[in-house]
């Protein structure tokens, strides 16, 4: 991990933007891109990708190669290109890729919810159905997670124990804690807005579901019943008692 990588992944409201530094040599770009795709694992399943190459001019074969590297990975699909290079725009046209992609609008975060654009969070294309949750594998952790410990899952995550403050759990699907959730939990990490976070005692430092984050509104004297967090119809993270109809 020497200098800055020349490939950066950025999660935004319109999908995954892969930004490629326009001055680095193409070999380095291919290496870094491979490395980033490797380490991202399943995090970008089914994501739409915008490829931002800046000033770099790419021949058709070069662009095609990059496209293939990205698309053979877990169903990523390049929806468009962002570039200022005429040559690249023509190459894109030959490959059937749109290159007139508008810049991101800056949205200011609302008070309680923070829109995470730097983390690997994706919003799936509007209109496409999310896969059913029972298709996801479920990992079970049979112990309390202590401060400084982290668990990630490509599916759902069940903790048979507490998640202490300073510990972090991240899952593509749901997070269920058979104990006290006092740390940070991030469910629906690839953008599944219907993911939930459930705990016997829900008193986290922070909750994140898909692209929203929330912290508890003051000292909640924990309820006797398990509680869960989810995103409601208005697009806010809300907490409900589990089991109440």
């Amino acid at each position: 991990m020497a200098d800055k990588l020349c490939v950066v992944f950025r999660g935004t409201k319109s999908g995954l933007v892969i930004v490629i530094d326009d001055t680095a040599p193409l070999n380095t770009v291919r290496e870094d891109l491979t490395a980033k795709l490797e380490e991202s694992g399943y995090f970008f399943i089914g994501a739409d990708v915008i490829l931002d190459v800046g000033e770099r001019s790419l021949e058709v074969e070069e662009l095609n190669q990059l496209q293939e590297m990205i698309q053979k990975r877990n169903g990523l699909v390049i929806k468009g290109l962002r570039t200022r290079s005429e040559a690249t725009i023509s190459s894109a046209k030959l490959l059937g890729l749109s290159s007139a992609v508008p810049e991101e609008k800056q949205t200011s975060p609302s008070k309680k919810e923070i829109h995470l654009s730097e983390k690997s969070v994706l919003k799936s294309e509007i209109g496409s159905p999310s896969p059913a949750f029972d298709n996801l594998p479920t990992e079970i952790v049979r112990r309390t997670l202590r401060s400084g410990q982290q668990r990630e899952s490509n599916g759902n995550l069940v903790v048979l124990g507490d998640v202490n403050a300073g510990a972090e759990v991240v899952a593509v699907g749901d997070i269920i804690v058979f104990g006290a959730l006092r740390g940070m939990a991030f469910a629906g990490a690839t953008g599944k807005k219907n993911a939930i976070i459930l705990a016997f005692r829900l008193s986290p430092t922070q909750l994140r579901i898909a692209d929203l984050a929330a912290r508890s509104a003051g000292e909640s004297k924990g309820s006797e019943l398990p509680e869960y967090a989810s995103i409601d119809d208005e697009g806010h993270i809300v907490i409900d008692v589990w089991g109440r109809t």
Partner: protein
Amino acid sequence: MLSRIIVITSGKGGVGKTTAVAHLGTALALTGRKVAVIDADIGLRNLDIVLGLENRIVYDLVDVVEGTCKVTQALIRDKRVGNLYLLPAAQTRTKDAVEPEQMVTLCDQLREMFDYVLIDSPAGIERGFQNALAGADSAVIVTTPHVSAVRDADRIIGLVEASEKGIPKLIINRLNIDMVKKGEMLNQDDVIDILSVGLLGIIPEDPLIVTASNRGISVLGNDKSKASEAFRRIARRIEGEDVPLMELNENHGFFGRLKRILSTNITGSGGH
């Protein structure tokens, strides 16, 4: 009975590890055990000050691991206690001067010579802590009833559990019973709820500790010290005795008990 080489660690600084090592080492030695206490806080040594032995340091831990001297030359015998020996840290070196494997070798040597070896760990989770942990058979975690200390203790417990030194035991230090009653301080149940480890003992807040540390003496001889009895009980628990926790309410004496009986009988209004 707890194993014989015990590291006392915390994560957080300033919670009372050095004080605990000094007092528990002394308490165990006073019962007749042969005890060595090791200051593993290289570069920031304090155990020598708290024991009142700083003027007698000739060789230190780093000299021993580097082979400059034998361990028997570096150990300082506390003449007031007799069975208590200090292996001081180096002050002019840093924690990089010692490797974990060297600590293991050193502790194995000391195991043959002493009934108990108590290792005073530095704060943190880096090399100093790892050195202190390496030679130990088991760990005791010290925390105060403060949110930040408990958070750090949790981190340390996770690291100790991962190192396969067994499940550590907990000492809650500087518990201020008045603040707990007013709801201004975590109580022992709050702390144990989060840390989920067995409680070795609770030491109440005691201003006499500060004076004693500054003078290099222990509070064990002082009847007015509330912490003194707590340390003695912990030493007995280390020896395997089943000792109940101290009653920490104020006013232990006769008039104190009388006052509590009277106040519970007074219903309703007014006055005190």
